């Protein structure tokens, strides 16, 4: 396992994974010799939640597997900002092949390892929402239905940020992107379109599906641990704030992810073999406006020429999530 000495730049329980907690309750991030899979020096934007999530996911997986981990990465921000020849920020066996095929490449890695009797080596595939929900959907679905021993992690920032914030199949309704501009009669992304990949994953009845956000990193870490306990195809969908694409303050990435969950627009849950087994309830509900207003991609919904009808539809969506996933009922499973 590639471990490096991490000079902690901050102190405090939340900043470095709970160093004030008991030893066994601490996050991997609390170790000064943690397996730093994604090291400093990469080229991610300030406030990039994808980089944060990727490091937590892979560091946790490295710890769980004792360093026996291989990673296939789809084309996208994560790949571009982490590797530009001759430099790489990865401290894990890592391969980037194409945009659409991370799931298949991971399947191949797992196949060779299995053929060589090395089932102890685990495989993670990762990509953005475009490489997952859109162009990579066929490979992903194939990996799911074959139940290949791969954990696929989608870092969902809700648009093609790498190429300049174009709309993806995961872009929320009304959001302004460079291909769904805030002009015309129905500005922003079209209502009634888009897909929520966790549900598609659940339809494959794979061993484990979970959603998470960068607002609750301990939850994310726990879900990676659960995922790695299972064999077969697993899917982890993480909402990651993109200050560039969302038009938010770089310091607000964690807060934005939290607001997404607390307004009901992003349900946090886990499922096994197609059935939901756990839901993270909303602790302190906020109106959807609290989440939308700070984001420039939704700016056209507000102000004197705002779009109350669109806001009403978004509220309806939050209501529906809350009902469907029982987000306000403590201890109730769907």
């Amino acid at each position: 396992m590639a471990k490096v000495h991490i000079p902690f730049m901050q102190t405090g329980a939340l900043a470095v994974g709970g160093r004030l907690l008991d030893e066994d309750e601490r996050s991997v991030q609390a170790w000064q010799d943690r397996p730093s899979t994604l090291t400093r020096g990469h080229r991610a934007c300030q406030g990039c939640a994808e980089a944060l999530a990727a490091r937590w996911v892979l560091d946790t997986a490295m710890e769980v597997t004792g360093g026996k981990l291989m990673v296939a990465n789809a084309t996208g921000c994560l790949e571009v900002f982490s590797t530009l020849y001759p430099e790489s920020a990865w401290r894990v066996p890592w391969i980037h092949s194409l945009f659409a095929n991370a799931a298949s490449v991971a399947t191949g890695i797992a196949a060779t390892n299995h053929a060589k009797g090395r089932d102890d080596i685990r495989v993670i595939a990762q990509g953005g929402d475009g490489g997952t929900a859109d162009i990579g959907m066929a490979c992903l679905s194939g990996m799911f239905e074959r139940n290949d021993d791969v954990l696929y992690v989608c870092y969902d920032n809700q648009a093609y940020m790498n190429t300049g914030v174009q709309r993806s199949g995961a872009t929320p309704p009304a959001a302004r992107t460079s291909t769904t501009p805030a002009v015309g009669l129905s500005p922003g992304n079209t209502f009634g379109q888009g897909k929520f990949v966790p549900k598609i994953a659940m339809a494959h009845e794979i061993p484990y599906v979970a959603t998470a956000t960068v607002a609750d990193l301990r939850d994310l870490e726990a879900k990676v641990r659960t995922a790695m306990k299972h064999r077969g195809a697993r899917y982890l969908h993480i909402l990651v704030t993109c200050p560039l694409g969302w038009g938010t303050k770089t310091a607000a990435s964690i807060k934005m992810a939290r607001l997404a969950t607390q307004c009901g627009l992003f349900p946090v849950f886990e499922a096994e073999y197609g059935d939901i087994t756990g839901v993270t309830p909303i602790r302190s509900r906020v109106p959807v406006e609290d989440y939308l207003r700070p984001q420039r991609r939704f700016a056209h919904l507000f102000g004197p020429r705002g779009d109350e009808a669109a806001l009403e539809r978004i509220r309806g969506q939050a209501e529906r999530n809350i009902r469907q996933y029982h987000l306000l009922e403590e201890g109730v499973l769907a």
Partner: protein
Amino acid sequence: MLELLEGSKAVARAVALTRPDVVCAYPISPQTHIVEALSVMVRDGHLKDCDYINVESEFAAMSVSIGASAAGGRVYTATASQGLLYMAEAIYNASGLKLPIVMTVANRALGAPINIWNDQSDSLSQRDSGWLQLFAVDNQEAIDLHVIAYKIAEQISLPVMVCMDGFVLTHASDVVELPTQEQVDAFLPPLAPLEKLSLKNPRSMGMMAGPDVFTETKYLAHQAMIQAHTVIARAAADFAAAVGRESWRPVRVWGPDLEDRPARQGEIAVIGMGSVMGTTQAAAARLWEQGVKTRLITLGSYRPFPARTVREAIGTADRVVVLDRALMLGVGGVLSADVRRSMARLGIPMHSVVAGLGGRSITERSLAKTLRQAKVGELGELEFMDLKQDLVTMSDAAVPVRAPARGAARPGAAAAPAGAPGAEGPDDAAASAPGAPAAAADDAMPTKPAQTGGPALTASAGSLGTATADEKATSADGAAPAAGDRAAPTASDRREG
């Protein structure tokens, strides 16, 4: 031990002898029998320690192969035609990543119109992909080549396509001999990849390369491909020695006189790849007695292209006839473009004979006719073997019909069957007349007149029999600029040469 085996089953057994770690494929005719046979061998335990993966597309097949190869496994897959195109992005990726994957291409035409039969358009469309492309003449060569291909691929760390004519070889049963497991094990050591995903030495593979290094990576890949010639030759010789018999060779020169020498004055050099060369050999033996003397240059290696060997084999032949199983629309044969480049300074006339597209049988009779025409100087520079003149002839009288004449066919209109020797008419007119190719005007070549007497021709083959006259005129218009680019082959020669 000699056995009577279907080509596909024989190849599957040859692949099994190489002890692959991972086999994955998506079904497409005419590749299916190979992967079916391998799936049985994995399931019944005949092929041990091998993961067989049924994928959801050819794109996934190549992608799984990439992952499996990157993890250090010996990987096999197979495809054809549309499947090869569907995986095209991953094909370039595999060679760029220098992964020693071996893939059978059961050569098949590309649509539309959809056609499941044999020609070589599919793999030749990937000629610049950085993969080696090695062709088998018969099923014995196909067997041998799969073992040889792994040796080559793993020595130079580049992927190899083993190309065998779909149906003609894959579905034919022939008397063949498989090497023994001991022979293959002695010839092909376990894979020791130059680079792989490794826990001990974690590296990043497939990183982005900027303008500062990209040219250099391509230069090195180019050099690797050139160096492959030596590795290929050695691997072929080593394999023949290992099995103690004749085997596949990157270039084979044969004449009915059985003398081991290049072509010489009074002879025609015939160049081709794949099963057509077997039929040509049968035809050549008879032609020899009739005074049509040929020397057959069978290319086992298409990429890298053995230009020097081909040039030497052409020697001082009177003329060169290339049997083209794939066509660059508006330009001419794909293989002949490579041959033309390799013989640029020889000053020997070259004829491209486009033959056997989409499964059209290449008969000894037609080959003999073609070679006799070449002998007496009546073969055009670009010919379509056994072209059905009546099918490419317009039946609709609404489209202008022009008498064969020098010059002025209406641009874009279905052209007159002009192409009289030395025709000075617009290029599009000459180009759309079979037998009177665009390239004809490039050299002082005797060009066979097109078959005259029929009405005008249409360039709209894709809509044969259904297009209205207007549609035909439109598609002819559309084709005109490309067809008119008659300098294309020579220009590209200069650029690339």
